[in-house]
């Protein structure tokens, strides 16, 4: 980029006088130091990279195009390409729009400088530091991750967790131990039918004893029969002294307090509800004749919100049944979106400042003229401001396209493992790094991928160059 720009300026400034030759020598002399630097740290490494891309991993043997072939023989490169596409499609547009909105808004508020400073501040931090902050924000555990804490608060308004929330991977049916079977919709049912005057025992396991002690559980006590009533016990059927016995009630086995129960009539409909006491006992009185079952309602086991895995590999598009290649191409992993959110926070200030500079340079007369002509604010913004800002917006947009084509720092920081080659958030640049300097050190593959990345960046670069030199 710099080479071309320098060359063109040179061309424009070339004098046509008689001292042409001397000037030429002089300018050459001035060019030499820069040219040497460019040669040493840009041109030569670029050529070396292209050369290495045709060599084997330790750069000792020419292997032709086989590096390029093996890059495209696995899904890894496709995944990286897909992620680059997601970044390029989503990020530059949104960050430009946000920058524009912030820039326009900041012109109309008091404390504009303070506002701009706050929005601009993230660009000052290193991306690694920002990533650390966002790693915490995105934590799965709602006690740590503020984003999940917010979601949890909202979620629990709508889905209050039960007294005995199931742990991850646990089903209500797995709790049933003695006298209980799985019921409909995650509830449990007494395995026996009972009639008035009879009593039941229902043993559950798989519940943390501390959950019971928090609820004030007392050692389980069998219920006595009562005429006209169905009574019974729900207890923690696990004794440390007799871990394999699942019939007896031992002194170290507690009752299940506060368990919501329903009495199901012969038709399966609920005819009465009750709760257990601290000993795990329950009592349905005035029971009509007939056979009944006792249901332990599913709401008792409603798990709490366990967090969204913001930095997880799960895809937002339903691709799990597709072939590996189709998955690689069509998945949109959540971690990409989370990373884009964090990156927006970092870059929004930069685009705002650039657009604001463009705004400041606008010809105010045109804007005022549109007001005089009766245009609304929105019409002015849409039909006057945006078209006049278009060159600035284009530069911001294209710069951001180039920026995210090479996206690397936030990717390896927010997704330590998922940015490894083949990982759901890997990008071309992260693959280049890991292939070249990660576990394997394969300079051939890394160089070949770097060449591919270069080829992809070239169109955007040329576009920007053309705009700059066209001015």
């Amino acid at each position: 980029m710099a080479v071309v720009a320098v060359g063109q300026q040179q061309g424009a400034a070339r004098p046509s006088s008689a001292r042409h030759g001397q000037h030429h020598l002089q300018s050459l002399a001035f060019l030499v130091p820069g040219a040497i630097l460019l040669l040493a740290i840009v041109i030569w490494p670029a050529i070396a990279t292209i050369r290495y891309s045709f060599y084997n991993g330790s750069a000792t043997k020419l292997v032709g195009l086989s590096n390029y072939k093996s890059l495209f023989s696995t899904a890894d490169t496709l995944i990286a390409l897909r992620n680059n596409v997601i970044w390029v499609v989503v990020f530059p547009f949104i960050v430009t729009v946000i920058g524009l909105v912030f820039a326009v808004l900041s012109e109309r508020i008091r404390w504009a400088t303070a506002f701009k400073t706050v929005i601009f501040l993230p660009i000052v931090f290193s991306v690694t530091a920002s990533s650390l902050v966002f790693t915490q924000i995105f934590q799965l555990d709602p006690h740590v991750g503020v984003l999940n804490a917010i979601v949890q608060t909202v979620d629990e308004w709508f889905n209050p967790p039960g007294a005995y929330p199931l742990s991850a991977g646990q089903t209500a049916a797995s709790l049933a131990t003695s006298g209980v079977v799985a019921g409909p919709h995650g509830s449990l049912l007494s395995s026996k039918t009972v009639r008035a005057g009879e009593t039941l025992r229902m043993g559950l396991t798989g519940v943390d004893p501390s959950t019971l002690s928090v609820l004030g559980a007392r050692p389980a006590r069998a219920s006595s029969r009562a005429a006209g009533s169905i009574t019974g016990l729900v207890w923690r059927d696990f004794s440390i002294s007799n871990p394999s016995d699942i019939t007896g009630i031992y002194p170290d086995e507690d009752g299940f307090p506060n368990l919501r129960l329903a009495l199901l009539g012969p038709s399966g409909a609920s005819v009465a509800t009750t709760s257990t006491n601290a000993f795990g006992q329950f009592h349905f009185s005035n029971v009509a004749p007939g056979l009944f079952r006792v249901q332990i309602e599913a709401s008792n086991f409603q798990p709490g919100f366990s967090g969204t895995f913001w930095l997880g590999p799960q895809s937002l598009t339903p691709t799990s049944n597709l072939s590996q290649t189709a998955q690689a191409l069509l998945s949109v992993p959540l971690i990409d979106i989370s990373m884009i959110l964090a990156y927006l926070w970092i870059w929004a200030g930069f685009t705002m400042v650039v657009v604001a500079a463009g705004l400041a340079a606008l010809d105010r007369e045109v804007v005022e003229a549109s007001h005089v002509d009766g245009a609304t604010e929105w019409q002015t913004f849409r039909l006057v401001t945006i078209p006049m800002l278009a060159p600035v917006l284009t530069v911001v947009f294209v710069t951001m396209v180039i920026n995210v084509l090479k996206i690397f720092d936030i990717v390896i920081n927010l997704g330590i493992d998922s940015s490894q080659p083949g990982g759901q958030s890997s990008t071309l640049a992260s693959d280049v790094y890991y292939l070249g300097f990660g576990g394997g050190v394969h300079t051939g593959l890394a160089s070949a991928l770097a060449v591919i990345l270069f080829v992809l960046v070239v169109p955007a670069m040329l576009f920007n160059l053309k705009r700059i030199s066209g001015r």
Partner: protein
Amino acid sequence: MTLRRGENGTQRGRVRLGSFSRHRLSSAAALAGLLALAASMVPASISTASPALTHIGGSVSLWAEWTSTEQQDFEAVLSPFEAETGVNVIYSGKGSNMDTAIDAAVAGGAPPQVALVPDPGTVINLAKKGAIQPLAPVIGSEASDYGSAWNNLVTYKNKLYGVWFKGANKNTIWYNPAEFAMAGLKSTPKTWQQLLADAATLKRAGVTPFSLCTDIGWPVADLWQNVYLKTAGATNYDALAAHNIAWTSPTVTKAFDTLAGLIGQPSYLLGGTKGSLANSYPECVDKVFPKPGTMPQAAMVIEADFVVSEIVGNSANYTAGTTGASGKKCTADPSKTPCYDFFPFPAPAADQMNNSAIQGSGDVAMLFKPTKAAKALVKYLGSPEAGEIWAHLGGFASPNKMVPLTSYPDPVTRADAQELQQATSFVFSLDDLQGSWEPSLWQDMLNFVKNPSASSISSIEKTMQSQATASLGH
């Protein structure tokens, strides 16, 4: 074990981001915690244990990976040698870049006189290049202080090129004895089947059995490698490491199926599958051995012996073994008398012959320049006296059979060291031998945790086979 011998000669640098440095840091931190615990136990008789050394004088340059507290401990090992021989040891701690630093120094023609590397592959590669000296003339019969499992790793063309100074054991499952007691478990499992049965009992008691450190790929690879070693044996392990066995072979499938018996039970895993994929080191250890103020959330964590530093770092209350401080019962509450203990990673009942094959890592000394001082230093590093000093300080296990087990500060470290000394086969991490496809291997292992079904296993195996072939060229 000839694990590194089958390697195709390409030496990989160990420059890894995040994942790897955590790996290293953990062991680097291993001493920080243990030191405090062990400090009170260093007997006064240590100085008398120094070997009889004659005065030599001069100086010798020495590189190893240890920095900070580990460096202090290592310098404590060196000081009797310096005092008695008058040799000035110029030590340089290279951290996790040890292999790369050595490769660069050899290529640049200025290696140190003696170096300790965490990778026997480096020793074999340097022996091939003729950059290091055979050690038989230096240490003589003391080579037999080490099991052949250890010596074979650093033998090239029947000549011994390295002497093991420090070992680390990955063949360990750490458990909270109080959590086991809550489920009425009185002994630790001896077979894989018993481990799963105990896990079921724990689950019935309302205790989540496992906190897996599987947010990233390498711990899954370590875990899988343990299972493969225990189901297929060390010979197959070496063959697979060199990719002389296909990743689609029945031994590989058996290991995946065996491990699926655990991974495929989300209710056994803290946080289920989703939570396991977000459970990072060292938090996964803290969930079994928490700091005072919180209670354990799971009973076991499958990790190498370096977790001890994390445990005793969480609270000095933690006591090694199954009896709490001052003879009290182990409590789950870390503010009272909590304990920690480990049991060896168990093989399935049908594969018990593989129980003494263990996976681990270690640091091996090699000699670049055979000066009198350098030779004396290598001989000293291989002697039981040198190992004994660090053993007393804690956080250290020596593969040297002559280091008395009584030098270790507690029964848990002692059992750990005993496992290392008695190993019939000792293998290093197989993923580190895979060259450029290692990150892909980690990713494949994570995919297995995500979906351990039979169809997923078969597709993962095919992927791994094609990746290995593409990367290793066979």
